[in-house]
């Protein structure tokens, strides 16, 4: 279903542009979160930050086939960049997002230039090495990162000089939802562009891509830059809304978790990344609250079940089940 958008029949059938569907979905989910779970807005705000990380990972892993376990490093760079900018006096939240995005885009371009030089296992190892390097630097450069205590004292100004951050995280949540909606609309367009299509082609067969005249390596680096920017927005958002940046933002564990969420939801599809990020974090949140002793076991079981029964991810599995349930005339 995912690749069908290109053909005219699919365009005719799906009269709504995906950008709009994306924005509407985020708006509905955001409204539901805001009104149904007013006690949990701080958690839901953090969830959105991590969702950016998973979306950014989808760009390089899902769309380009780059194996990486170092994506959180890009997230962390954005968080530290925004945090430091804020402490230095740039307190406007939108400017801080831009700082985070720019910092991580740069980190993405640099690390991407190294990581995409390799393929397969060496690539994976390089990505881990990069993440370890960033973690070690974050730990050592305590004047910039606060070291193991974390970077604190991040007090952003009111958004657009009007909406100040409150202790119930209402402003933070609404701000995050709006930023996510805008980012998702951009990404929905981005992955459908000729550039996005070429990236999917490169993932399928990079030699073939070279043989049609495409310079594969520069394209992958550019994609890494974009992915970094998306991760950086997530990191900056988390820094702004929580006021602190800890070492866990950059760590290997967060990278691995993001990969799990992506695979769970379905790599190579923004809806999959979104589904995986939201459902995994909700599940983790609920289960760890109700059963603090065995929640990791339950999360492990969920993962195994999903990989066994929906190996291409929850989103794909659900859309197949849905199209089977629908009346025959809707099928192709």
């Amino acid at each position, binding site marked *: 279903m995912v*690749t*069908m*958008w*290109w*053909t*005219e*029949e*699919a*365009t005719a059938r799906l009269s709504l542009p995906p950008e709009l569907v994306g924005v509407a979905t985020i708006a509905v989910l955001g409204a539901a979160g805001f009104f149904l779970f007013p006690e949990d807005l701080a958690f839901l705000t953090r969830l959105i930050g991590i969702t950016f990380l998973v979306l950014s990972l989808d760009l390089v892993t899902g769309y380009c086939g780059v194996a990486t376990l170092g994506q959180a490093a890009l997230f962390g760079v954005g968080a530290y960049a925004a945090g430091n900018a804020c402490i230095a006096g740039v307190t406007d939240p939108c400017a801080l997002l831009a700082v985070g995005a720019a910092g991580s885009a740069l980190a993405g371009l640099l690390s991407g230039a190294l990581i995409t030089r390799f393929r397969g296992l060496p690539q994976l190892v390089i990505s881990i090495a990069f993440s370890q390097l960033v973690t070690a630097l974050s730990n050592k450069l305590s004047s910039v990162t606060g070291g193991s205590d974390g970077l604190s004292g991040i007090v952003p100004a009111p958004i657009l000089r009007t909406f100040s951050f409150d202790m119930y995280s209402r402003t933070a949540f609404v701000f995050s939802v709006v930023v996510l909606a805008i980012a998702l609309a951009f990404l929905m*367009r*981005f992955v*459908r*562009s*000729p*550039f*996005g*299509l*070429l990236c*999917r*082609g490169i*993932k*399928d*067969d990079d*030699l*073939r*891509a*070279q*043989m*049609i*005249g*495409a*310079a*594969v390596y520069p*394209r992958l680096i550019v994609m890494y830059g974009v992915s970094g920017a998306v991760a950086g927005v997530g990191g900056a958002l988390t820094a702004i809304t929580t006021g602190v940046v800890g070492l866990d933002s950059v760590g290997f564990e967060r990278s691995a978790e993001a990969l799990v969420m992506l695979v769970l939801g379905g790599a*190579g599809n923004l809806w999959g990344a979104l589904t995986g990020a939201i459902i995994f974090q909700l599940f983790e949140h609920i289960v760890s609250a109700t059963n603090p002793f065995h929640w990791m076991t339950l999360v492990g079981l969920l993962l195994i079940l999903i990989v066994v029964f929906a190996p291409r991810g929850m989103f794909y599995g659900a859309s197949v089940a849905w199209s089977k349930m629908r009346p025959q005339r809707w099928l192709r």
Partner: protein
Amino acid sequence: MTLLLGLHDVSKSFGGLHVNRDVSFDLVSGDRVALIGPNGAGKTTLVNIISGDLTPSYGRITFEGEDITGLSIAHRAHRGLVRTFQITRLFSTLTATENVALAVMQRKGMTRRFLSVAGSSSDVRSECQELLQTLGIGHLAGLRVSELAYGQQRLLEMAIGLALRPKVLLLDEPAAGVPHDEAPKILEAIERLPPDIAVLMIEHDMDLVFRFAKRVLVLANGKLIFEGTPSAVTADEEVRRAYLGSYADARRPT
């Protein structure tokens, strides 16, 4: 008759194994050349060297008078040196149209665009449709490569090659795996190519070779042992010994 592609003493060895030895030939505009030879003669290696997938151990390759020996695959393709693969290589999760569209958009320099929708250009769409129809797979446009039969994939591979508007087209056994009733479509597509481009085809099907080629190159043990017209090739003793065997006898005028 402009000189398009030139090979000068191209040699390739893997360790002690000499796959190609001092191969030299030219392709001029309008050439229709068949490259034949027994299995293991080094035909595909030669195409890999020309397309840039392998670097020759020795020798030079020129394209439109310029040395391209050190040029990357992508640059060669961009200049109009295009190949197809013996074993189909396609973008397997994309649809047939998307496969061709990528080639068309790459040729037009459109793949840097990141805010327009890939299918929105009607020029690209109609060109894709035309190419797919030329090869008789227009009705499969919306199917993914993984849903196509192998023969149809071969035709799609050909469509991608044509979409790049090559100046020199290297076809590595384009008809291998194509069902017999569809094979003529490949030849038709080649016959409809602009007359000034050069085509080099590796092929085992001698009927196809005789229909297509104006000139035949024979490679045996990595060496070029014959260059001449299709009718002369059957008469050549060395070629017959190396390759043609009984087929040549069957073709021999009585």
